[in-house]
């Protein structure tokens, strides 16, 4: 663990965003994770994404479960709201928070153990209910915090550091998310910030359940030969289907591409997702085709990354439930607690 504080000094030319903040203003405390952990790069990407989005830190709530990955919210956005829940329960706490205060931006940070093992049910229901959130799984194929047991996302046939072969089938969280109705689904790699940062920005801006499966090598327990989540393995097998430019409604679009080379998706808030195609026929708007493509490439041993699915016409839990448009903490007391007469009336209607 690093004991010294990260110096407050920063590069004199460090750019400021529309709020006058530098990227450094979005940082958290110095990481206590193992040196070289992929999770730290994801934290750095979240910092970068929030900076680029001109996000007001107090407008964001970061929620996590238990695990090395779930510890990371301490290492970014020190001025945001945070909730470190029990193991696997982040999705439910996030759902509750979102119901109570729909005005905040919700960032769920979890691990493969936290979300695919103990928390699988919670994960599934938060997605299928359409909770408006950006949900990132920092996927290293092991329970890092408890010293490297295989997790449920570990590929069948991959080897542990001690040489034990995993005989269980892997859960593919991207396929699950697609199946369960996530309207923004991406996979990325902690070692590719150029790809990851725009994906996080798009996910934060998306209305509805946005899910990112981010492969993130565990430097201590899963970065050896025989692992399918190591830096070397992921670099060798990474096949990006597209490259995303996230463009906010205000910013001018400068990058020019050949017609037919890009797909543009305008999200509900006016932001534009501009996708440069890498795989010629891949259209992420087509969920069924995406699932078929992914199954096929997965069988061929490729790790497909990029923005895999996006539904421009997405909705969220509040739309489904028809909830009140103001967050509960802004309702006056008499609206929030209408009194026993109102209760009588409701009960009467149900008799």
């Amino acid at each position, binding site marked *: 663990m690093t004991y*010294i504080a*990260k*110096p*407050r000094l920063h*590069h*004199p*030319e460090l750019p400021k965003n529309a709020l006058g903040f530098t990227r450094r203003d979005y940082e958290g405390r110095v990481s206590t994770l193992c040196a*070289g952990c992929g999770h730290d790069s994801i934290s750095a990407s979240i910092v970068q994404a929030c900076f680029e989005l001109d996000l007001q830190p107090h407008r964001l709530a970061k929620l996590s479960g238990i695990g090395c990955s779930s510890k990371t919210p301490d290492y970014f956005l020190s001025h945001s709201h945070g909730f470190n829940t029990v193991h696997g329960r982040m999705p439910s706490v996030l759902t509750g928070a979102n119901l109570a205060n729909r005005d905040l931006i919700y960032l769920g940070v979890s691990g493969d153990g936290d979300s695919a093992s103990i928390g699988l049910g919670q994960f599934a229901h938060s997605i299928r209910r359409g909770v408006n959130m950006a949900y990132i799984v920092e996927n290293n194929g092991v329970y890092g915090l408890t010293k490297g047991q295989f997790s449920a996302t570990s590929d069948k046939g991959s080897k542990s550091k001690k040489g034990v072969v995993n005989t269980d089938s892997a859960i593919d969280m991207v396929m699950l998310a697609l199946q369960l109705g996530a309207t923004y689904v991406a996979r990325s790699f902690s070692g590719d910030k150029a790809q990851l940062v725009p994906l996080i920005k798009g996910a934060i801006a998306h209305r509805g359940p946005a899910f990112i499966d981010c492969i993130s090598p565990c430097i201590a327990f899963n970065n050896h030969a025989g692992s399918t989540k190591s830096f*070397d393995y992921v670099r060798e097998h990474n096949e990006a289907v597209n490259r995303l430019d996230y463009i906010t409604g205000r910013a001018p679009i400068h990058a020019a591409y050949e017609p037919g080379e890009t797909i543009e998706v305008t999200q509900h808030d006016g932001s534009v997702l501009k996708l440069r195609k890498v795989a010629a026929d891949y259209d992420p708007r087509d969920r069924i085709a995406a699932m078929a493509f992914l199954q096929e490439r997965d069988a061929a041993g490729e790790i497909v990354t990029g923005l895999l699915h996006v539904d421009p016409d997405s909705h969220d839990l509040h739309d489904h439930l028809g909830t009140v448009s103001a967050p509960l903490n802004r309702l006056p007391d008499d609206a929030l607690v209408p009194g026993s007469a109102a209760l009588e009336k409701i009960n009467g209607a149900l008799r």
Partner: protein
Amino acid sequence: MEPTNTEAPEYFHKVVDCQWACPAHTPVPEYIRLIAAGRYSDAYMVNWKSNVFPGILGRTCDRPCEPACRRGRVEEEPVAICRLKRVAADNKDDITARLPKAPERKNGFRVACVGAGPASLAVARDLAPLGYHVTVFDGDPKGGGMIRTQIPRFRLPEEVIDEEVGYITGLGLDMKYGQRIESLKALLAEPYDAIFVGSGAPRGRDLDVPGREEARANIHIGIDWLSNVSFGHIEKIGKRVIVLGGGNTAMDCCRTSRRLGGEDVKVIVRSGYDEMKASPWEKEDAQHEGIPILNFLAPKAFTYEGTNGSTRLTGVVFQKMGWTTDDKGKRRLLPTGEPDQHFECDDVLVAIGQENAFPWIERDVGLEFDEWDMPKVDPVTLQSTNPKVFFGGDAAFGPKNIIWAVAHGHDAAISIDRFCRGQDVGLRPPPNVLQSSQKMGIHEWSYDNDISNDERHRVPLLEKDKALSSIKFEVELGFDKGLGYAETQRCLNCDVQTVFSTPACIECDACVDICPMDCITFTANGEESDLRTRLKAPAENETQDLYVSGTLPTGRVMVKDEDVCLHCGLCAERCPTGAWDMQKFLLDMTHAGEKACGR
């Protein structure tokens, strides 16, 4: 770009900005750490070896290190390097036992030094311990040159000069005070194996405008006047004083006047405030003592009253000046045409520059002079065209400062030593370099890598009224131990280098993510000019190098911009494979007679 060759000592030396900028290449961060550890005597000796006059320089150095200091680029102000030197000098124990001694048996070579200023004394300090018989001539009654004659006592107490000059004269030199050398030819005829000319730049420039002759009794040449003050020949000046000139001599003249009875003292300068030659801190100090600085006024005439033999200065007439741009687009300082201005005064001090003068060097002794009537001197060896005669300090290339005089002294001593031994003077000894990892445990380093957020600490001053009451009271009180410690913590330890190992790196990005200054980038290689634009933060300071690795497995290279690195070691702490290491790079200049390896 090719992978950086960190084996060449220049590479890491350049990263230690202060040491690189110091003419004598004092290992600054090394002595700052010693001060932080309370090891004042050790810190003093590190300085003494490099710059010979730590107590003097700790009060008066022109400090080229400070504008170079990295701290000034990452925050507002540089480390108070110069005043920390004084902390070492003020708090050291008796160090006389640690000084070198002249050997009983001399080596048989005899060297004559002309002048007992810092340049000559540095030569003597390097040569005497090697067994040279060194004779030093000076027309003045005491040693130190302009350190003693020019720098006023309120900036530099005489005890400090006596002490540090004494350390050198104590090496068994043959001091010939009160003996001006009137002929180089005669000196060459004496049995000396080499001669070092450290006679300074002794002539103050005069101002030849109407009234100069008539009012001469109250018009003084600044440096002559200052040396008369230093030797106690002058103790008073008129109530209203005008100092002409904008350099450091002018600042010393005006501040000295304030202490010798001058109540209305003004500095009047031809150019603008920013173009003045005086160091910013000298200008501030003068203004702090209630001395106004008036700019854009060129002296045109001295006014006086009375006739024939009983004339008295009454003031100075000035022409108004201003910047204009001529047809060629060049900025020029020209009269504005506004009406002249007259300032009344009782005395004028002329401090408009200094010149070299060598009336005592005959032009037929094989020593060539150039078109500006300066001796032709090799900038590296300091040898003149007469191979036996070497120059240094202000005498070599015109007026500079003490630390340059010392640096010249070291270089000339090397040359003289090689010359006497019949070796090639052009072959210079390489510096001594020691490089060692600072890692002690996974997160433990043998240097303090926590970065202090303190801003530069101010040196406490003597209360103004008291300071102005006598020329003998030192104005600056110096940092006490506590303040000195706090200031040491601002040093970034730039000599603790970030050293990269290409084969060890697994390209995990941990160093990139942690670096507080965005120094590190992994990217495709390219030409330097192109790379500089593609880094995590654009590398616009081209005086600072890029550190480039060999090609990594992904085909990229690691590029580190040295510019604003804090040397915090976080990259090395967060690197899982030890591809980054923090290594102390200690460079010591090799002085005359020292072996280039081992210390």
